[in-house]
């Protein structure tokens, strides 16, 4: 079950919007596919991301995956806890395992993201 109040990308990022700030992480499905996450590389606060561009990397024991920005905007915070506890991505992907907060530059981009149902369908298809 994926949280119904979030938006999703085909690349398995989720977005939670509060005001003009979007919190971004990866879905439980993605975390499970990767296996035990051991390292998350995140951008510096202040960097401006373009939608669909890579903003970081997540590594598990034997896999690596790029992270793609779901929306354009400036990074206003990153989850520093992941530096010492990357396993939070596995144990609480939609909560403590969040990755970054972005000041949304174009709210219109949010409409292009997947709703929970559509994302669930995508992962069900494999």
């Amino acid at each position: 079950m994926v949280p119904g109040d979030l938006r999703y990308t085909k690349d398995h990022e989720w977005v939670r919007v509060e005001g003009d700030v979007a919190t971004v992480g990866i879905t439980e499905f993605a975390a499970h596919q990767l296996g035990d996450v051991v390292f998350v590389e995140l951008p510096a606060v202040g960097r401006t991301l373009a939608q669909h561009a890579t903003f970081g990397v997540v590594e598990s024991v034997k896999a690596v995956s790029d992270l793609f920005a779901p929306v354009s905007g400036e990074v206003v915070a990153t989850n520093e806890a992941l530096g010492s506890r990357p396993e939070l991505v596995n144990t609480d992907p939609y909560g403590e395992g969040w990755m970054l907060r972005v000041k949304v530059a174009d709210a219109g981009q949010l409409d292009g993201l997947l709703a929970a149902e559509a994302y669930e369908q995508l992962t069900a298809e494999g």
Partner: protein
Amino acid sequence: MPYGPHSADDRARMLEAVGVDSVDRLFDDIPEALRSSPLRMDPPEPELALTARLLELASRNRTDLASFLGAGAYRHWTPAAVDQMLLRGEWYTAYTPYQPEVSQGTLQSIYEYQSLLAELTGMDVVSASHYDGGAATAEAALMTCRATGRERLLVSRGVHPHYRRTLETYADGAGLRVDEVPLAVEGPEAGTTDLAALQSMLADGAPVAGVVAANPNVLGLLEDLPRIGALAHGAGALLVHVIEPVSLSVLATPGETGADIACGEGQPLGIPLQYGGPYLGIVACREPLIRQIPGRLVGLTRDLEGRRAFVMTMRAREQDIRREKAASNICTNQALLALAAAIYLAAIGPHGLRDVAALGAARASELEAALAAAGAPRLHAGPYLNEFAVRVPDARRVHARLLDRGVLAGIPLAELLPADPSLADGLLVCATEVTTPADIATFADALRAELAGGAA
């Protein structure tokens, strides 16, 4: 085939199970037009004959001469225990420890190597090994570019010319710019990195990612690494300290000089000269650069039952997982040479290692005095450990003539560093703990005779 076990009957049984009448059928998928013509090679040589051939080839090399060769590869005595251990098949016929449950020997030995070299260099992290000093220096320099996001490197001409050429090759591939910092030509600092030139090169042009300097440098001279490091750091660049590991038992370590990365050639730690390799590339760094270090790393962990165990770790940085995004394509390392270095250090101990360095220094002092008395004074004034350059008129000719007198009289600097005219009359000579007073006398006598114009 000398090492094949199959009888005709074995082959017939296998063919039957496969369901073909001839092994040729298994190669039918090679297009006819592309099939190999028969190999034009000698017939197989029985081991008895091959043994004789190899002995004869080895005997053509002159390893019986009084040798004063150094310049990045050093003659040292190695405790007999080292090679006896290396000859165990469990070490040398194993592969990369991909299955940690049946590779704890190799994994623990690499972890111990990393730990020993961390102690020796004063750095936090040491990679499981690289190809050699040249490739290690190139990889270390590239690390500074990844860490700083800058694309220009400064490398001192005091760094071994082969390392500089290797770095150029790697940097060219990566689209990076490399500028060489000249050596001071005059005064007490002659032969060491020209600090004024370094300062202005750091100030002018594109921002510098890393400054690469060696201690001792290729001329055997001691460099002011802390000063070089301070200049580099002042410009936002990192310092790469090219080391010689035996000297680190007595000389300031990269940890003490303020280096961010250490790299160098591990051959002096129990590895035979063998005409250039296989050797041992050392790469070490401080903790914050851990994500930038290329190649394999072994870490300590636990098994299901809580027992201490070792495993290759941080694997997702490497080429087999990250593919085109990997920091380096390195795969094979020099595990067996890292093992040799570890056994050497364990067998010789901290005091033994210091004695190796000190005895080399003592022999070098004797060599300096003997050569000066024979008419070849030092070329530079600065301090050295066990390798230095002397001035010999017409050095290349004298060098060749001394070979006829049974002396490998070091290396003509006109060949090693042809770009620097101030070194044209130089011979780079080296002494270690295996240099004997008799060798030194042979060299000095031959040189005296040669400079006097005497016949051999």
